[in-house]
């Protein structure tokens, strides 16, 4: 176990460590720092102590023996209901850069039944090889057979890095794969790069509701795995003339071994899904009553946008939970986010403040939403929103 102690003779009681501790674990007692049970051995206090009075002893960690055998960057090619998730293409884009920085190949990892076309798509977006398992058991996504397939491929071909979309599917199954392989998995990354000296994958992600960013490494085990938030990485160019190799493998798992069964899929009435939407029009309490979501839907229809909602409207039963944006709903990052009658509680902002352009329409000029809005309109949404819908309809010839 790691140990941390304060050299009481050296400590001057300056309190620098108290302020630096991200976990509020340090207090001053009789002008000496005392480290309590909340300490996670992060070492932030050691770095700030001006008199080197805090000593942290970390244990030697397990180092995987065959670490040097691992090479290449892999991207999980996610698909559901006959369509590749666009985050997979975004990952091929960032994966290309990582592979170039490491001087290795970029490969796709694909599972399914009769989806060889998707392997060709991955090649068109930059993969040099695609590892593909085709099996009827994999027809519909389920955790167990997909995890089994991924684990078999990873153990056989030893990729250095594996990237997944931070989608429902990616997050469901990457955690399973990393647990079995006993390697690190960093969730919901928004930045990935290679450290030029150590060649390690630097994985940057928001934490504490986006209030802080953390950079995370997985130094001693392989592969280094991340799930990556959709719409953060730019979409690469598709080039159908690209050539690549498709390597097929078998699953080695029969239907009897799978303990789950998909009974049915009920498609959402929502035409555009929130996490993949380029434009989102969201409504809040300012709409006054559930029927007024009609105004939001009309604007969304003209723009081909998804409909979002604040927590207040969902809790009031005005609109289903699947539309909720924010801390206890979805985190979205569209190119344009139009907030109508949303005051901008911090929980809502946590779910949308990284959108490229934010438009706020609210009658209260002091509403916090205006603090993050690229363009703000202080006014009555019942006048502004229909006028916007009409103007877009005219310009777009719809």
């Amino acid at each position, binding site marked *: 176990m790691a140990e941390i102690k304060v050299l009481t003779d050296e400590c001057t009681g300056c309190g620098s460590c108290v302020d630096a501790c991200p976990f509020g674990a340090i207090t001053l007692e009789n002008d000496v720092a005392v480290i309590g*049970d909340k300490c996670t051995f992060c070492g*932030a206090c050691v770095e700030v102590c001006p008199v080197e009075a805090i000593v942290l002893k970390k244990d030697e960690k397990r180092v995987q023996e065959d670490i040097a055998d691992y090479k290449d960057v892999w991207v999980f090619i996610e698909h559901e209901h006959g369509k590749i998730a666009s985050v997979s293409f975004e990952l091929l884009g960032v994966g290309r850069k990582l592979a170039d920085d490491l001087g290795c190949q970029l490969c796709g990892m694909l599972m399914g039944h009769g989806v060889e076309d998707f392997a060709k798509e991955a090649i068109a977006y930059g993969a040099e090889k695609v590892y593909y398992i085709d099996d009827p058991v994999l027809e519909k996504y389920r955790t167990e057979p997909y*995890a089994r397939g991924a684990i078999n491929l990873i153990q056989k071909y030893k990729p250095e890095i594996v990237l997944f979309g931070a989608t429902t599917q990616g997050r469901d*199954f990457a955690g399973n794969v990393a647990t079995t392989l006993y390697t690190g998995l960093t969730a919901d990354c928004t930045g990935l790069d290679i450290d030029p000296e150590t060649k390690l994958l630097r994985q940057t992600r928001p*934490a504490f509701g986006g209030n*802080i960013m953390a950079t995370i490494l997985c130094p001693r085990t392989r592969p280094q795995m991340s799930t990556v938030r959709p719409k953060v990485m730019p979409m690469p160019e598709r080039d159908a003339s690209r050539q690549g190799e498709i390597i097929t493998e078998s699953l080695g798992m029969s239907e009897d071994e799978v303990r789950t069964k998909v009974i049915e899929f009920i498609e959402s009435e929502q035409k555009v899904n929130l996490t993949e939407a380029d434009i989102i029009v969201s409504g809040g309490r300012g709409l006054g009553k559930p029927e007024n979501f009609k105004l939001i839907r009309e604007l969304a229809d003209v723009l081909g946008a998804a409909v979002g909602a604040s927590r207040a409207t969902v809790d009031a039963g005005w609109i289903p939970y699947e539309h909720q944006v924010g801390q206890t709903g979805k985190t979205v990052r569209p190119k344009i986010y139009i907030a109508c009658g949303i005051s901008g509680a911090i929980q809502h902002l946590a779910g949308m403040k990284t959108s490229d352009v934010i*438009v706020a329409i609210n009658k209260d000029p002091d509403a916090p939403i205006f603090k993050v809005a690229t363009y703000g309109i202080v006014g009555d949404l019942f006048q502004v929103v229909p006028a916007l819908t009409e103007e877009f309809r005219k*310009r777009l010839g719809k």
Partner: protein
Amino acid sequence: MKIVVCIKQVPDTTEVKIDPETKTLVREGVESITNPFDEFAIEEGLLTKEKYGGEVHVITMGPPQAKEVLKNAYAVGADNVYLVSDRAFAGADTWATAYTLSAAIKKIGDYDLIICGKQAIDGDTAQVGPGIATQLNIPQLTYVDKVVEIDPDNKKIKVERLLEDGKEVVEASLPALITVVKDINEPRLPSLFGIKKAAKLDIPTWTADDLPVDKDKLGLKGSPTEVVTVFSPEVRGGGEILEGEVPEVVTKLVDKLMDMKFIQ
């Protein structure tokens, strides 16, 4: 039905900020709460017990202060609560956390259903639930917004999962682990009697020595990942307030958005 609910004490993250000058987290006045998604997990445990009979066990891993969230769980009706706490668990990433919690669940034993919140609001990883299911080698059903039915005799559970583009009805064998989203129920409030009862409760604490674990896989030592830097995100400033009568501001806004050459 023996139900185990895993919960986490988290800082109310809406109040956590970084001091722009010192670049450190400002924690003053930040309250500790039960992770909001875990409130739904506890409620689902209680509802399941009420419908199918059985008992609800609630566990949390954390420092001694985390007892508070267990008291809340007990006050609303959990039958047993346990604190999993040891300095050896400190600094655990999601791998080591799932490993430790799964050992505590093995100690409780004979479980039929494990319920976790979809994710915790401080780390937002959604990885610990799947990690526990993998460690215990049981099926996992994540993002559950409705338990359709449980058949305790034939050891089956049928749920609805909330996906990006719709809902999926899935069946699994028990024991299984589910992670739940907010929409699944409405958590109850504790009764005055419950609060009084919880205040007197002596909460059992399990340390590393009490659990079937390999100590090299615990806490900081057992964690494959390492946090190397923590920094403040770029602060997004307010932009331009468009002024004028409605037709005028609408024209201005549409001009600006159409200039992005993106709307079709």
